[in-house]
Protein backbone atom coordinates (compact mmCIF):
# COMPACT_ATOMS: atom_id res chain seq x y z
CA UNK A 1 0.00 0.00 0.00
CA UNK A 2 2.92 2.32 0.82
CA UNK A 3 4.28 1.84 -2.70
CA UNK A 4 0.90 2.52 -4.33
CA UNK A 5 0.44 5.68 -2.24
CA UNK A 6 3.90 6.92 -3.20
CA UNK A 7 3.28 6.17 -6.88
CA UNK A 8 -0.12 7.89 -6.72
CA UNK A 9 1.30 11.02 -5.12
CA UNK A 10 4.08 11.10 -7.71
CA UNK A 11 1.63 10.65 -10.60
CA UNK A 12 -0.59 13.42 -9.22
CA UNK A 13 2.35 15.78 -8.79
CA UNK A 14 3.55 14.97 -12.30
CA UNK A 15 0.05 15.65 -13.67
CA UNK A 16 -0.28 18.88 -11.71
CA UNK A 17 2.98 20.15 -13.19
CA UNK A 18 2.12 19.07 -16.72
CA UNK A 19 0.73 21.41 -19.29
CA UNK A 20 -2.56 19.55 -19.69
CA UNK A 21 -4.28 20.95 -16.61
CA UNK A 22 -2.91 24.45 -17.24
CA UNK A 23 -4.48 24.45 -20.69
CA UNK A 24 -7.73 22.57 -20.13
CA UNK A 25 -8.89 24.04 -16.82
CA UNK A 26 -8.64 27.71 -17.94
CA UNK A 27 -10.34 26.66 -21.18
CA UNK A 28 -13.25 25.20 -19.22
CA UNK A 29 -13.38 28.28 -16.96
CA UNK A 30 -13.59 30.43 -20.09
CA UNK A 31 -16.35 28.21 -21.42
CA UNK A 32 -18.33 28.68 -18.21
CA UNK A 33 -17.80 32.46 -18.47
CA UNK A 34 -18.95 32.36 -22.09
CA UNK A 35 -22.04 30.46 -20.99
CA UNK A 36 -22.93 33.35 -18.68
CA UNK A 37 -22.43 35.84 -21.52
CA UNK A 38 -24.63 33.85 -23.93
CA UNK A 39 -27.20 33.50 -21.17
CA UNK A 40 -27.58 37.28 -21.22
CA UNK A 41 -29.01 36.98 -24.73
CA UNK A 42 -31.79 34.61 -23.66
CA UNK A 43 -34.17 36.25 -21.26
CA UNK A 44 -34.97 34.08 -18.26
CA UNK A 45 -32.87 31.14 -19.44
CA UNK A 46 -29.42 32.27 -18.36
CA UNK A 47 -29.25 30.01 -15.29
CA UNK A 48 -30.18 26.94 -17.34
CA UNK A 49 -27.61 27.82 -19.99
CA UNK A 50 -24.86 28.40 -17.46
CA UNK A 51 -25.64 25.10 -15.74
CA UNK A 52 -25.90 23.17 -19.01
CA UNK A 53 -22.75 24.55 -20.58
CA UNK A 54 -20.89 24.57 -17.27
CA UNK A 55 -21.50 20.86 -16.64
CA UNK A 56 -20.70 20.05 -20.28
CA UNK A 57 -17.45 22.00 -20.00
CA UNK A 58 -16.53 20.11 -16.82
CA UNK A 59 -17.27 16.77 -18.51
CA UNK A 60 -15.30 17.61 -21.68
CA UNK A 61 -12.36 19.09 -19.80
CA UNK A 62 -12.31 16.02 -17.54
CA UNK A 63 -12.56 13.70 -20.55
CA UNK A 64 -9.52 15.19 -22.26
CA UNK A 65 -7.61 15.29 -18.97
CA UNK A 66 -8.40 11.63 -18.31
CA UNK A 67 -7.41 10.58 -21.82
CA UNK A 68 -4.23 12.64 -22.12
CA UNK A 69 -2.98 11.90 -18.62
CA UNK A 70 -4.20 8.30 -18.55
CA UNK A 71 -2.47 7.47 -21.79
CA UNK A 72 0.63 9.53 -20.98
CA UNK A 73 1.13 8.03 -17.54
CA UNK A 74 1.64 4.55 -18.94
CA UNK A 75 1.97 4.39 -22.74
CA UNK A 76 3.88 7.69 -22.76
CA UNK A 77 6.27 6.47 -20.11
CA UNK A 78 6.77 3.19 -21.93
CA UNK A 79 7.39 5.03 -25.20
CA UNK A 80 9.81 7.49 -23.56
CA UNK A 81 11.35 4.53 -21.68
CA UNK A 82 11.14 6.43 -18.41
CA UNK A 83 9.32 3.43 -16.97
CA UNK A 84 12.52 1.33 -17.11
CA UNK A 85 14.15 2.83 -14.04
CA UNK A 86 10.86 2.74 -12.17
CA UNK A 87 10.24 -0.95 -12.83
CA UNK A 88 13.76 -1.82 -11.70
CA UNK A 89 12.82 -0.57 -8.22
CA UNK A 90 11.12 -2.85 -5.68
CA UNK A 91 7.66 -2.36 -7.16
CA UNK A 92 5.32 -4.82 -8.79
CA UNK A 93 3.83 -3.98 -12.14
CA UNK A 94 0.25 -4.12 -10.88
CA UNK A 95 1.25 -1.63 -8.17
CA UNK A 96 2.46 0.73 -10.90
CA UNK A 97 -0.90 0.50 -12.67
CA UNK A 98 -2.86 1.02 -9.45
CA UNK A 99 -0.62 3.85 -8.24
CA UNK A 100 -0.83 5.73 -11.50
CA UNK A 101 -4.58 5.24 -11.62
CA UNK A 102 -4.98 6.56 -8.07
CA UNK A 103 -2.86 9.63 -8.94
CA UNK A 104 -4.92 10.20 -12.05
CA UNK A 105 -8.19 9.98 -10.10
CA UNK A 106 -6.80 12.51 -7.63
CA UNK A 107 -6.01 14.86 -10.53
CA UNK A 108 -9.55 14.38 -11.86
CA UNK A 109 -11.07 15.11 -8.44
CA UNK A 110 -9.12 18.38 -8.33
CA UNK A 111 -10.08 19.13 -11.93
CA UNK A 112 -13.83 18.56 -11.46
CA UNK A 113 -13.72 20.20 -8.02
CA UNK A 114 -12.17 23.40 -9.37
CA UNK A 115 -14.70 23.57 -12.20
CA UNK A 116 -17.60 22.92 -9.81
CA UNK A 117 -16.43 25.80 -7.61
CA UNK A 118 -16.13 28.09 -10.64
CA UNK A 119 -19.59 27.03 -11.84
CA UNK A 120 -21.13 27.72 -8.43
CA UNK A 121 -19.31 31.05 -8.35
CA UNK A 122 -20.74 32.12 -11.74
CA UNK A 123 -24.22 30.93 -10.72
CA UNK A 124 -24.00 32.83 -7.43
CA UNK A 125 -22.99 35.94 -9.39
CA UNK A 126 -25.99 35.48 -11.74
CA UNK A 127 -28.32 35.06 -8.74
CA UNK A 128 -26.91 38.14 -7.05
CA UNK A 129 -27.28 40.34 -10.12
CA UNK A 130 -30.79 39.22 -11.12
CA UNK A 131 -33.96 40.79 -9.75
CA UNK A 132 -36.10 38.93 -7.23
CA UNK A 133 -38.88 38.71 -9.83
CA UNK A 134 -36.58 37.04 -12.34
CA UNK A 135 -35.33 34.62 -9.70
CA UNK A 136 -38.95 33.59 -8.94
CA UNK A 137 -39.26 32.47 -12.57
CA UNK A 138 -36.43 29.92 -12.26
CA UNK A 139 -37.41 26.24 -11.95
CA UNK A 140 -34.56 25.62 -9.53
CA UNK A 141 -32.36 27.94 -7.50
CA UNK A 142 -29.18 29.09 -9.24
CA UNK A 143 -26.94 27.63 -6.55
CA UNK A 144 -28.60 24.25 -6.65
CA UNK A 145 -27.12 21.41 -4.52
CA UNK A 146 -28.34 18.96 -7.21
CA UNK A 147 -25.47 20.17 -9.36
CA UNK A 148 -23.17 18.28 -7.01
CA UNK A 149 -24.88 15.02 -8.03
CA UNK A 150 -24.18 15.80 -11.68
CA UNK A 151 -20.55 16.70 -10.90
CA UNK A 152 -20.14 13.53 -8.86
CA UNK A 153 -21.46 11.32 -11.67
CA UNK A 154 -19.22 13.14 -14.16
CA UNK A 155 -16.31 12.24 -11.88
CA UNK A 156 -17.37 8.57 -11.72
CA UNK A 157 -17.65 8.52 -15.52
CA UNK A 158 -14.16 10.03 -15.77
CA UNK A 159 -12.88 7.29 -13.47
CA UNK A 160 -14.19 4.74 -15.97
CA UNK A 161 -12.61 6.63 -18.88
CA UNK A 162 -9.29 6.92 -17.03
CA UNK A 163 -9.28 3.18 -16.30
CA UNK A 164 -10.05 2.47 -19.97
CA UNK A 165 -7.23 4.81 -21.05
CA UNK A 166 -4.79 2.98 -18.78
CA UNK A 167 -6.01 -0.36 -20.11
CA UNK A 168 -5.50 0.64 -23.75
CA UNK A 169 -2.17 2.20 -22.83
CA UNK A 170 -0.85 -1.14 -21.58
CA UNK A 171 -0.65 -2.63 -25.06
CA UNK A 172 -0.65 0.17 -27.62
CA UNK A 173 1.01 3.44 -28.55
CA UNK A 174 -0.14 6.70 -26.91
CA UNK A 175 -1.94 7.91 -30.05
CA UNK A 176 -3.75 4.62 -30.58
CA UNK A 177 -4.68 4.34 -26.91
CA UNK A 178 -6.10 7.89 -26.95
CA UNK A 179 -8.10 7.15 -30.10
CA UNK A 180 -9.49 3.92 -28.64
CA UNK A 181 -10.45 5.63 -25.38
CA UNK A 182 -12.24 8.47 -27.16
CA UNK A 183 -13.96 5.91 -29.40
CA UNK A 184 -15.08 3.98 -26.35
CA UNK A 185 -16.42 7.18 -24.76
CA UNK A 186 -18.47 8.07 -27.84
CA UNK A 187 -19.74 4.52 -28.36
CA UNK A 188 -20.47 4.25 -24.63
CA UNK A 189 -22.84 7.20 -24.88
CA UNK A 190 -24.70 5.56 -27.77
CA UNK A 191 -24.92 2.18 -26.09
CA UNK A 192 -28.72 2.35 -25.73
CA UNK A 193 -29.04 3.15 -29.45
CA UNK A 194 -26.97 0.07 -30.29
CA UNK A 195 -29.44 -2.08 -28.35
CA UNK A 196 -32.42 -0.67 -30.24
CA UNK A 197 -30.79 -0.59 -33.67
CA UNK A 198 -32.62 -3.79 -34.65
CA UNK A 199 -35.93 -1.91 -34.49
CA UNK A 200 -34.66 0.50 -37.14
CA UNK A 201 -32.59 -1.67 -39.51
CA UNK A 202 -34.38 -4.96 -38.93
CA UNK A 203 -32.79 -8.30 -38.00
CA UNK A 204 -29.47 -9.11 -39.64
CA UNK A 205 -25.75 -9.05 -39.20
CA UNK A 206 -25.58 -5.30 -38.48
CA UNK A 207 -28.23 -5.53 -35.79
CA UNK A 208 -26.61 -8.61 -34.21
CA UNK A 209 -23.23 -6.89 -34.27
CA UNK A 210 -24.68 -3.77 -32.65
CA UNK A 211 -26.45 -5.81 -29.97
CA UNK A 212 -23.25 -7.75 -29.29
CA UNK A 213 -21.28 -4.52 -29.02
CA UNK A 214 -23.80 -3.05 -26.61
CA UNK A 215 -23.07 -5.89 -24.18
CA UNK A 216 -19.29 -5.46 -24.47
CA UNK A 217 -19.11 -1.67 -24.30
CA UNK A 218 -19.81 0.16 -21.06
CA UNK A 219 -23.03 2.17 -21.04
CA UNK A 220 -21.93 5.71 -20.20
CA UNK A 221 -25.22 7.50 -20.83
CA UNK A 222 -26.57 7.01 -17.26
CA UNK A 223 -23.63 9.05 -15.92
CA UNK A 224 -24.92 12.14 -17.70
CA UNK A 225 -27.70 13.70 -15.60
CA UNK A 226 -27.14 17.26 -16.84
CA UNK A 227 -30.58 17.50 -18.45
CA UNK A 228 -32.32 16.27 -15.29
CA UNK A 229 -30.44 18.70 -13.05
CA UNK A 230 -30.91 21.67 -15.39
CA UNK A 231 -34.64 21.03 -15.85
CA UNK A 232 -35.36 20.29 -12.19
CA UNK A 233 -36.01 16.60 -12.73
CA UNK A 234 -35.29 14.45 -9.66
CA UNK A 235 -32.07 12.43 -9.47
CA UNK A 236 -32.78 10.01 -6.61
CA UNK A 237 -29.92 8.97 -4.32
CA UNK A 238 -30.60 5.34 -5.21
CA UNK A 239 -29.96 6.13 -8.87
CA UNK A 240 -26.70 7.87 -8.00
CA UNK A 241 -25.60 4.93 -5.83
CA UNK A 242 -26.47 2.32 -8.48
CA UNK A 243 -24.79 4.28 -11.28
CA UNK A 244 -21.71 4.79 -9.11
CA UNK A 245 -21.53 1.07 -8.34
CA UNK A 246 -21.83 0.29 -12.06
CA UNK A 247 -19.05 2.78 -12.81
CA UNK A 248 -16.80 1.25 -10.19
CA UNK A 249 -17.38 -2.22 -11.68
CA UNK A 250 -16.47 -0.92 -15.16
CA UNK A 251 -13.37 0.77 -13.78
CA UNK A 252 -12.37 -2.36 -11.85
CA UNK A 253 -12.74 -4.50 -14.99
CA UNK A 254 -10.57 -2.14 -17.04
CA UNK A 255 -7.99 -1.91 -14.27
CA UNK A 256 -7.93 -5.68 -13.85
CA UNK A 257 -7.31 -6.03 -17.57
CA UNK A 258 -4.62 -3.35 -17.46
CA UNK A 259 -2.82 -5.08 -14.59
CA UNK A 260 -3.05 -8.46 -16.30
CA UNK A 261 -1.69 -7.20 -19.63
CA UNK A 262 1.00 -4.93 -18.17
CA UNK A 263 2.28 -7.61 -15.78
CA UNK A 264 3.09 -9.89 -18.71
CA UNK A 265 4.23 -7.35 -21.25
CA UNK A 266 7.74 -7.31 -22.68
CA UNK A 267 9.08 -3.75 -22.57
CA UNK A 268 11.26 -3.74 -25.67
Amino acid at each position, binding site marked *: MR*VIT*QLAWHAFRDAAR*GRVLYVLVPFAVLLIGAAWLSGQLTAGQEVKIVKDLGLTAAALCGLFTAVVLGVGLLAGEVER*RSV*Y*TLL*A*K*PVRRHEVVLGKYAGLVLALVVNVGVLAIVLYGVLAFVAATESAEARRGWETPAVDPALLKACFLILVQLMVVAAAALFFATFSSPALAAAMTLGLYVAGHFNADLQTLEEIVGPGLTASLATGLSFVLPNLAPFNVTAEVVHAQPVPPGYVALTTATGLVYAALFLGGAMLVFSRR*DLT
Partner: protein
Amino acid sequence: MAAVRLLALTKDFDIGFWRRRPVAALQGVTLDVAPGEVLGYLGPNGAGKTTTMKLLVQLLFPTSGSVEVLGRPAGDVAVRRRVGFLPEAPAFGDNLSAEELLIHYGRLFGFAAPDARRRAARLLDRVGLDAERRRPLRRCSRGMRQRVGVAQALLNDPEVVLLDEPLAGLDALGRRAVRSLLLSLREEGRTVLLSSHILSDAEALCSRIAILARGRLAAAGRLADLGLEVRGWELVVAGVTPAQVAAIEPAPERVTRADDGRCVIALPRSRPPEPILAELIRGGARILALAPQHETLEEFFVRTVAGREAEREAAG
Protein backbone atom coordinates in the same frame (compact mmCIF):
# COMPACT_ATOMS: atom_id res chain seq x y z
CA MET B 1 26.85 -18.72 -5.23
CA ALA B 2 27.08 -16.46 -8.28
CA ALA B 3 25.80 -12.93 -7.83
CA VAL B 4 24.34 -13.05 -11.32
CA ARG B 5 23.63 -16.26 -13.22
CA LEU B 6 22.37 -16.61 -16.76
CA LEU B 7 21.50 -20.19 -17.60
CA ALA B 8 20.89 -21.17 -21.24
CA LEU B 9 19.18 -17.80 -21.63
CA THR B 10 17.28 -17.37 -24.87
CA LYS B 11 15.12 -14.47 -25.95
CA ASP B 12 13.19 -14.31 -29.21
CA PHE B 13 11.28 -11.28 -30.46
CA ASP B 14 8.36 -11.68 -32.81
CA ILE B 15 8.61 -9.31 -35.75
CA GLY B 16 6.34 -8.63 -38.70
CA PHE B 17 2.76 -7.45 -38.71
CA TRP B 18 0.74 -10.16 -40.43
CA ARG B 19 3.12 -13.07 -40.45
CA ARG B 20 4.94 -12.80 -37.18
CA ARG B 21 8.19 -14.71 -37.02
CA PRO B 22 10.61 -15.05 -34.13
CA VAL B 23 14.03 -13.42 -34.33
CA ALA B 24 16.58 -14.58 -31.79
CA ALA B 25 18.14 -11.77 -29.75
CA LEU B 26 19.86 -14.11 -27.31
CA GLN B 27 20.66 -17.75 -27.91
CA GLY B 28 21.49 -20.02 -24.99
CA VAL B 29 23.73 -17.62 -23.09
CA THR B 30 25.20 -19.13 -19.93
CA LEU B 31 27.29 -16.86 -17.74
CA ASP B 32 28.13 -16.44 -14.05
CA VAL B 33 29.23 -13.21 -12.40
CA ALA B 34 30.97 -13.84 -9.09
CA PRO B 35 30.28 -11.65 -6.03
CA GLY B 36 32.56 -8.61 -6.04
CA GLU B 37 33.46 -9.05 -9.69
CA VAL B 38 33.30 -6.22 -12.24
CA LEU B 39 32.35 -7.90 -15.48
CA GLY B 40 32.46 -6.06 -18.77
CA TYR B 41 29.64 -7.26 -20.99
CA LEU B 42 30.78 -6.28 -24.44
CA GLY B 43 29.46 -6.55 -27.92
CA PRO B 44 28.71 -4.50 -31.00
CA ASN B 45 25.34 -2.83 -31.46
CA GLY B 46 22.61 -5.44 -31.75
CA ALA B 47 24.61 -8.17 -30.04
CA GLY B 48 22.03 -8.63 -27.26
CA LYS B 49 23.62 -6.69 -24.38
CA THR B 50 20.61 -4.47 -23.66
CA THR B 51 18.29 -7.46 -24.01
CA THR B 52 20.30 -9.25 -21.32
CA MET B 53 20.17 -6.22 -19.04
CA LYS B 54 16.41 -5.96 -19.47
CA LEU B 55 16.02 -9.66 -18.70
CA LEU B 56 18.00 -9.15 -15.51
CA VAL B 57 15.44 -6.64 -14.18
CA GLN B 58 12.49 -8.39 -15.82
CA LEU B 59 11.64 -5.64 -18.25
CA LEU B 60 11.63 -8.61 -20.61
CA PHE B 61 10.69 -12.22 -19.97
CA PRO B 62 12.94 -15.02 -21.25
CA THR B 63 11.76 -17.28 -24.05
CA SER B 64 13.68 -20.09 -22.36
CA GLY B 65 16.44 -20.49 -19.82
CA SER B 66 16.64 -18.64 -16.55
CA VAL B 67 18.03 -15.51 -14.91
CA GLU B 68 19.05 -15.39 -11.27
CA VAL B 69 20.27 -12.43 -9.28
CA LEU B 70 21.64 -13.06 -5.77
CA GLY B 71 20.23 -16.57 -5.93
CA ARG B 72 16.67 -15.50 -6.67
CA PRO B 73 14.67 -15.14 -9.92
CA ALA B 74 15.15 -11.78 -11.65
CA GLY B 75 11.63 -10.51 -10.95
CA ASP B 76 11.84 -11.00 -7.19
CA VAL B 77 10.93 -7.71 -5.49
CA ALA B 78 13.11 -8.46 -2.46
CA VAL B 79 16.11 -8.87 -4.77
CA ARG B 80 15.42 -5.53 -6.44
CA ARG B 81 16.05 -3.84 -3.10
CA ARG B 82 19.65 -5.05 -3.45
CA VAL B 83 20.12 -4.24 -7.14
CA GLY B 84 20.81 -0.99 -8.98
CA PHE B 85 20.04 -0.58 -12.67
CA LEU B 86 21.00 2.02 -15.23
CA PRO B 87 19.27 1.54 -18.60
CA GLU B 88 20.82 2.62 -21.86
CA ALA B 89 20.18 6.37 -22.49
CA PRO B 90 18.00 6.74 -19.40
CA ALA B 91 14.84 8.84 -19.60
CA PHE B 92 12.78 10.28 -16.77
CA GLY B 93 9.54 12.18 -16.27
CA ASP B 94 10.18 15.69 -17.49
CA ASN B 95 8.31 17.60 -14.83
CA LEU B 96 10.55 16.71 -11.90
CA SER B 97 14.01 17.80 -10.87
CA ALA B 98 16.84 15.32 -10.34
CA GLU B 99 16.51 15.72 -6.58
CA GLU B 100 12.75 15.08 -6.61
CA LEU B 101 13.18 12.03 -8.81
CA LEU B 102 15.80 10.51 -6.53
CA ILE B 103 13.70 11.21 -3.42
CA HIS B 104 10.71 9.57 -5.13
CA TYR B 105 12.76 6.49 -5.96
CA GLY B 106 14.20 6.50 -2.45
CA ARG B 107 10.68 6.42 -1.02
CA LEU B 108 9.89 3.42 -3.25
CA PHE B 109 12.82 1.64 -1.60
CA GLY B 110 11.12 2.35 1.71
CA PHE B 111 13.52 5.02 2.97
CA ALA B 112 12.04 7.69 5.23
CA ALA B 113 11.82 11.12 3.58
CA PRO B 114 14.87 12.63 5.38
CA ASP B 115 16.97 9.57 4.55
CA ALA B 116 15.87 9.63 0.91
CA ARG B 117 16.71 13.34 0.75
CA ARG B 118 20.14 12.75 2.28
CA ARG B 119 20.93 9.91 -0.13
CA ALA B 120 19.79 11.98 -3.10
CA ALA B 121 21.99 14.92 -2.08
CA ARG B 122 25.03 12.67 -1.50
CA LEU B 123 24.71 10.92 -4.86
CA LEU B 124 24.02 14.05 -6.89
CA ASP B 125 27.13 15.53 -5.33
CA ARG B 126 29.05 12.37 -6.21
CA VAL B 127 28.08 12.54 -9.90
CA GLY B 128 28.82 16.26 -10.06
CA LEU B 129 25.23 17.49 -10.24
CA ASP B 130 24.92 19.15 -6.86
CA ALA B 131 24.47 22.61 -8.38
CA GLU B 132 21.86 21.35 -10.86
CA ARG B 133 19.81 19.24 -8.46
CA ARG B 134 16.72 21.48 -8.69
CA ARG B 135 16.79 21.97 -12.45
CA PRO B 136 13.77 20.33 -14.17
CA LEU B 137 14.92 17.21 -15.97
CA ARG B 138 13.43 18.47 -19.25
CA ARG B 139 16.06 21.20 -19.21
CA CYS B 140 18.93 18.80 -18.59
CA SER B 141 21.37 17.74 -21.29
CA ARG B 142 21.77 14.08 -22.24
CA GLY B 143 24.98 13.90 -20.26
CA MET B 144 23.29 15.28 -17.14
CA ARG B 145 20.46 12.78 -17.48
CA GLN B 146 23.05 10.03 -17.79
CA ARG B 147 24.59 11.15 -14.52
CA VAL B 148 21.17 11.28 -12.87
CA GLY B 149 20.72 7.74 -14.17
CA VAL B 150 23.93 6.62 -12.53
CA ALA B 151 22.91 8.32 -9.27
CA GLN B 152 19.49 6.61 -9.18
CA ALA B 153 21.14 3.25 -9.82
CA LEU B 154 23.20 3.64 -6.63
CA LEU B 155 20.46 5.06 -4.41
CA ASN B 156 19.98 1.85 -2.41
CA ASP B 157 23.70 1.04 -1.94
CA PRO B 158 23.15 -1.99 -4.17
CA GLU B 159 25.10 -5.21 -3.89
CA VAL B 160 24.69 -5.79 -7.61
CA VAL B 161 24.90 -2.92 -10.09
CA LEU B 162 23.73 -3.38 -13.68
CA LEU B 163 24.94 -0.60 -15.94
CA ASP B 164 24.00 -0.43 -19.60
CA GLU B 165 26.43 1.87 -21.43
CA PRO B 166 27.09 4.08 -18.38
CA LEU B 167 29.65 6.28 -20.14
CA ALA B 168 27.62 6.95 -23.27
CA GLY B 169 26.72 10.58 -23.94
CA LEU B 170 29.09 11.98 -21.31
CA ASP B 171 31.58 14.75 -21.88
CA ALA B 172 35.17 14.42 -20.65
CA LEU B 173 34.32 15.73 -17.19
CA GLY B 174 31.29 13.49 -16.88
CA ARG B 175 33.25 10.45 -18.02
CA ARG B 176 35.88 11.14 -15.41
CA ALA B 177 33.29 11.53 -12.63
CA VAL B 178 31.44 8.35 -13.59
CA ARG B 179 34.63 6.36 -14.16
CA SER B 180 35.89 7.27 -10.70
CA LEU B 181 32.49 6.30 -9.29
CA LEU B 182 32.69 2.92 -11.02
CA LEU B 183 36.22 2.39 -9.74
CA SER B 184 35.04 3.12 -6.22
CA LEU B 185 32.27 0.53 -6.67
CA ARG B 186 34.96 -1.99 -7.54
CA GLU B 187 36.97 -1.03 -4.48
CA GLU B 188 33.87 -1.35 -2.29
CA GLY B 189 33.52 -4.94 -3.48
CA ARG B 190 30.21 -4.54 -5.27
CA THR B 191 29.29 -6.81 -8.13
CA VAL B 192 29.05 -4.81 -11.34
CA LEU B 193 27.83 -5.93 -14.74
CA LEU B 194 28.87 -3.21 -17.15
CA SER B 195 27.59 -3.34 -20.68
CA SER B 196 29.51 -1.41 -23.30
CA HIS B 197 30.53 -1.49 -26.91
CA ILE B 198 33.74 0.38 -26.13
CA LEU B 199 36.65 -1.89 -25.33
CA SER B 200 38.75 0.78 -23.62
CA ASP B 201 36.01 1.33 -21.00
CA ALA B 202 36.10 -2.34 -20.10
CA GLU B 203 39.90 -2.37 -20.10
CA ALA B 204 39.99 0.42 -17.55
CA LEU B 205 37.21 -0.77 -15.26
CA CYS B 206 36.65 -4.50 -15.48
CA SER B 207 38.32 -7.49 -13.92
CA ARG B 208 36.84 -9.86 -16.50
CA ILE B 209 34.93 -9.47 -19.72
CA ALA B 210 32.36 -11.45 -21.64
CA ILE B 211 31.86 -10.84 -25.32
CA LEU B 212 28.54 -11.27 -26.99
CA ALA B 213 28.15 -11.63 -30.74
CA ARG B 214 24.88 -12.12 -32.58
CA GLY B 215 23.13 -13.19 -29.40
CA ARG B 216 25.71 -15.79 -28.45
CA LEU B 217 28.51 -15.66 -25.92
CA ALA B 218 31.62 -15.51 -28.10
CA ALA B 219 34.19 -15.39 -25.33
CA ALA B 220 34.58 -14.81 -21.60
CA GLY B 221 37.63 -14.33 -19.44
CA ARG B 222 40.31 -11.82 -18.59
CA LEU B 223 40.95 -9.42 -21.45
CA ALA B 224 44.56 -10.52 -21.80
CA ASP B 225 43.46 -14.15 -22.11
CA LEU B 226 40.91 -13.62 -24.86
CA GLY B 227 43.37 -13.45 -27.69
CA LEU B 228 42.51 -10.00 -29.01
CA GLU B 229 45.08 -9.37 -31.71
CA VAL B 230 47.47 -6.45 -31.39
CA ARG B 231 47.10 -4.45 -34.62
CA GLY B 232 49.93 -2.06 -33.91
CA TRP B 233 51.33 0.44 -31.44
CA GLU B 234 50.57 4.03 -30.58
CA LEU B 235 53.52 6.03 -29.40
CA VAL B 236 53.13 9.49 -27.84
CA VAL B 237 56.35 11.52 -27.66
CA ALA B 238 57.37 15.10 -26.94
CA GLY B 239 60.42 17.05 -28.11
CA VAL B 240 60.78 15.10 -31.31
CA THR B 241 61.96 16.77 -34.51
CA PRO B 242 60.49 16.16 -37.99
CA ALA B 243 63.90 14.86 -39.04
CA GLN B 244 63.80 12.22 -36.31
CA VAL B 245 60.35 11.08 -37.44
CA ALA B 246 61.45 10.99 -41.04
CA ALA B 247 64.38 8.83 -40.02
CA ILE B 248 62.08 6.04 -38.83
CA GLU B 249 62.38 3.50 -41.62
CA PRO B 250 60.15 2.27 -43.05
CA ALA B 251 57.87 5.23 -42.41
CA PRO B 252 55.26 4.91 -39.65
CA GLU B 253 51.61 4.35 -40.62
CA ARG B 254 50.51 7.73 -39.36
CA VAL B 255 52.05 10.72 -37.58
CA THR B 256 49.87 13.35 -35.90
CA ARG B 257 51.37 16.49 -34.47
CA ALA B 258 49.56 18.38 -31.71
CA ASP B 259 49.90 22.14 -31.16
CA ASP B 260 51.63 21.61 -27.83
CA GLY B 261 54.57 19.88 -29.51
CA ARG B 262 53.44 16.34 -28.77
CA CYS B 263 53.54 13.83 -31.55
CA VAL B 264 51.46 10.67 -31.91
CA ILE B 265 53.11 7.98 -34.00
CA ALA B 266 51.16 4.93 -35.15
CA LEU B 267 53.26 1.85 -35.84
CA PRO B 268 52.11 -1.35 -37.53
CA ARG B 269 52.25 -4.66 -35.68
CA SER B 270 55.21 -5.74 -37.78
CA ARG B 271 57.36 -2.98 -36.26
CA PRO B 272 58.60 -3.80 -32.76
CA PRO B 273 58.55 -0.46 -30.93
CA GLU B 274 61.68 -0.98 -28.79
CA PRO B 275 64.37 0.01 -31.37
CA ILE B 276 62.36 3.08 -32.40
CA LEU B 277 61.94 4.10 -28.78
CA ALA B 278 65.69 3.78 -28.19
CA GLU B 279 66.40 5.85 -31.30
CA LEU B 280 63.98 8.63 -30.29
CA ILE B 281 65.34 8.77 -26.73
CA ARG B 282 68.88 9.03 -28.07
CA GLY B 283 67.73 12.01 -30.16
CA GLY B 284 66.39 13.77 -27.04
CA ALA B 285 62.71 12.95 -27.33
CA ARG B 286 60.60 12.26 -24.24
CA ILE B 287 58.38 9.18 -24.33
CA LEU B 288 54.95 10.02 -22.92
CA ALA B 289 53.06 6.83 -23.70
CA LEU B 290 53.23 3.57 -25.56
CA ALA B 291 50.04 1.58 -25.96
CA PRO B 292 49.19 -1.54 -27.93
CA GLN B 293 46.34 -1.02 -30.39
CA HIS B 294 44.04 -4.03 -30.23
CA GLU B 295 41.75 -5.04 -33.00
CA THR B 296 38.30 -3.54 -32.50
CA LEU B 297 35.53 -5.56 -30.94
CA GLU B 298 33.80 -5.67 -34.29
CA GLU B 299 36.92 -7.16 -35.89
CA PHE B 300 37.20 -9.64 -33.04
CA PHE B 301 33.58 -10.70 -33.45
CA VAL B 302 33.87 -11.09 -37.18
CA ARG B 303 37.00 -13.20 -36.75
CA THR B 304 35.56 -15.27 -33.89
CA VAL B 305 32.11 -15.78 -35.33
CA ALA B 306 33.33 -16.38 -38.87
CA GLY B 307 35.88 -18.84 -37.51
CA ARG B 308 33.21 -20.72 -35.59
CA GLU B 309 30.89 -20.86 -38.56
CA ALA B 310 33.70 -22.19 -40.74
CA GLU B 311 34.45 -24.84 -38.12
CA ARG B 312 30.78 -25.81 -37.99
CA GLU B 313 30.58 -26.07 -41.76
CA ALA B 314 33.72 -28.17 -41.87
CA ALA B 315 32.36 -30.45 -39.16
CA GLY B 316 28.92 -30.67 -40.84
